[in-house]
């Protein structure tokens, strides 16, 4: 049987306009901006404390509206990836 996705309360979001703009958008939708993702410019790591940490479904709520915000170029709820040591 295919393995089912596990959704987390973490998001990756691409926003131009710098850290301040990212902070504003995070706060608007109830997220906390944990900062830029590594060396990827305009990509930020968002966390939503009111979304369950691990879930079999991508839960919907006001936080989901971030995907529709015109200032957000791309957003993706993070899914747990199965990784094995070799």
């Amino acid at each position, binding site marked *: 049987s295919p393995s089912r996705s*596990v959704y987390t309360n*973490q998001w990756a979001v691409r926003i131009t306009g710098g850290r301040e703009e990212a902070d504003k958008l995070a706060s608007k939708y109830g997220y906390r901006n944990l900062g830029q*993702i*590594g060396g*990827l410019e305009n*990509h930020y790591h968002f966390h939503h404390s009111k979304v369950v940490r691990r879930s079999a479904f991508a839960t919907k709520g006001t936080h989901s509206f971030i995907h529709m915000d015109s200032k957000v170029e791309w957003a993706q709820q993070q899914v747990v*990836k199965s990784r094995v040591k*070799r």
Partner: protein
Amino acid sequence: YARNDPNFVHFNDPKWSNMWYIHCTEKNSRCRSEMNILSAWQRGYTGKNVVVTILDDGIERNHPDLAQNYDQLASYDVNGNDHDPTPRYDSSNENKHGTRCAGEVAAVANNSHCIVGIAYNARIGGIRMLDGDVTDVVEAKSLGIRPDYIDIYSASWGPDDDGKTVDGPGPLAKQAFEVGIKKGRKGLGSIFVWASGNGGRQGDHCSCDGYTNSIYTISVSSATENGNKPWYLEVCSSTLATTYSSGEFYDRKIVTTDLRQRCTDGHTGTSVSAPMVAGVIALALEANPLITWRDVQHLLVKTSSPVHLKAKDWKTNAAGYRVSHLYGFGLVDADAMVVEAKKWRSVPPQHTCTKISDRRTRYIRADQKMNTTITSTGCSGHPEQHVSYLEHVVVRVLIVHPRRGDLEINLISPSGTRSQLLAKRLFDNSNEGFRNWEFMTVHCWGERAEGQWTLEISDSPSQLRSPEVMGKLKEWTLILYGTSENPYYSNGSHHSRSRMLEIPSLGKDLKNPEPSPVSPQEEEEEEEEYNGSCNSECGDQGCDGPDADHCLNCIHFSLGNLKTGRTCVSHCPLGFFEDSSARRCRRCHRGCEKCTGRGPSECLSCRRGLFLYATESTCVESCPVGFYADDIQRQCLKCHENCMKCLRDADRCTACSEGFSLAGMTCVPECANGTFFHLEEMKCSPCHFSCSTCTGPGKEECIRCARDFLQQDWMCVPECSPGYYEGETGGFHHQMCRKCEENCLSCEGPGLTCTKCRDGYNLVSRTCIVNATCNNADEVFCEMVKSNRLCEKKLFRQFCCRTCLMAG
């Protein structure tokens, strides 16, 4: 000439003799040292100034074999979001993996603990990222940590090797790889080394792993000590090279560092191989720190060798390289790597030529082969994309299929080299097909790109399937990576030129692919016939080629010597100073990074790990008294004037100058007797009248007591309290009140000298014993007590002793 004599190098590390894959002590068939690591060491390459990090479940940074080479700047805890990658400890030692991998790379040599790392002077870091939920963000963060500082990232993990998974980096991790190779190492490109996978027993194929399949990773496979295929080995066309690792139960495994400061001789799998290659690359980077991420792959292709590795599919491609789906180009050869790296000139820029098939759906019929072709010119009409000499070849496919595991895909190059892009996978029942999945092959490396490329897809149902549901190839794209010029004999990129110092390899010729694109004789002729324009750095005497190292004299400075080859430069690099009169870059004294002359006292800045002592313009390992080592400025900076010694900051004092005394980590003026330095008021204030010297105004803050006062516990008192006696103590000349024996209310001195007991105790023989009588202490009983000397035992003294003593 480096001796390949095991006795020539010896380490006192207890597991050194078990490191069969580095040296051999037995002269028989079990003697395996074809990775030639010892020879690379004998040439002096040990990984100095190279930074390697292990992406895994953490590394035990205080392990005795790792602590000395541990580099905090190359480490991070992505799971815990801090800078400490120490693994989480549990009863099953689940998180031992990263520590094991780290030891292989950079365990300290000759410290009598465990083993010797392949790059035992390299710096080693750990990125803890596997001990928690792994997401695309976690991977992207981990792959992008300090790309300008970390040279090599080693990863021994990946998607499930269960023979049914098709998975790879998400969009963020893909970008992190791209950013790493474009910007990492100040533009030379981060080096990502990956374990090819352990799914051999499940019939897995490493082309279904997007990490090992990526052109940005160096995918490494394993071979047993006898050159056999290990049970866990996965085959695929993206594997570049191989190292030794474990095999069957009777084959030897790998010794390395283990969790809880231990050593193990049981490290196994392809996890072993990625750090081994990371260590070998570290040696090569020490030999030539300027090689790019693609140079490293070229070096591995050129120097890895089939030796005794057994496989039925070894073939020679049209560029003369021997290559296999099991082992890539073969066993890595550390010695050949450093020799080649030392004289390596960067290959020309990477070009990409892409061609998409027409959008006609092609049906894949069961039990039949479906062939489709793309004819490529190698984008010869587009200079920026023109690929003539191949490196990686990628095939992107959009396939719809009812059972993915029944598919086998091959690619045949214009020269006839067949790469198996996918083999059948017994356990893969997925009906998802391949949605723009990219397969990669390195088997055409060095071949010419132009011509007809054939994609061959077979569908062999392993289970009963509806014949009406057929697979479809909806689209495929051929992506050719490589160079427009011959990478080794291109305009200005002369490898192994006669003016370079050749160090003979140890009884083994470096691979010389046939047919050789340009023979040495042709090269000579090419040099003699050179009539083009000289490099802008060349002086008035002209040149014998187009590059700065072809100049006969220089307008600014000449760098190098006759042995290593000379080149003209506008400014001298770090480690050299500009001798304007001789127009030469001359080497600074060892340890100096910038200098004004050759002498040890002419340094302006120092190499990493050393500090500039500006007063004497020298580079020192530790700063003299009165100075501290500033890690950021890499200089010895002066401690605060009140400090005699300080630590990390000018005002974090550990000892004070004369006239000052230490208050915490601050040196404050010493005050006269009877006063102390009040930090808030910044003046000397009086002590309590009972103190002669003190740390504060309170009566419990005395250091020494005033005259006529005695020290009792933490206070100074005019006379000893009940239960204390007056006396001097060893080392202290002032009088002190010391506590009487237990239960004594007053005493004459130490020991059994009580004169008065507290309530509930009676004085018996100058000892206080509990006030209780013993009603059955007759003569016989007391004799027994006396003969057994029970009253000498504290436990019994409280019972009948008093009665017996009173009875005589």
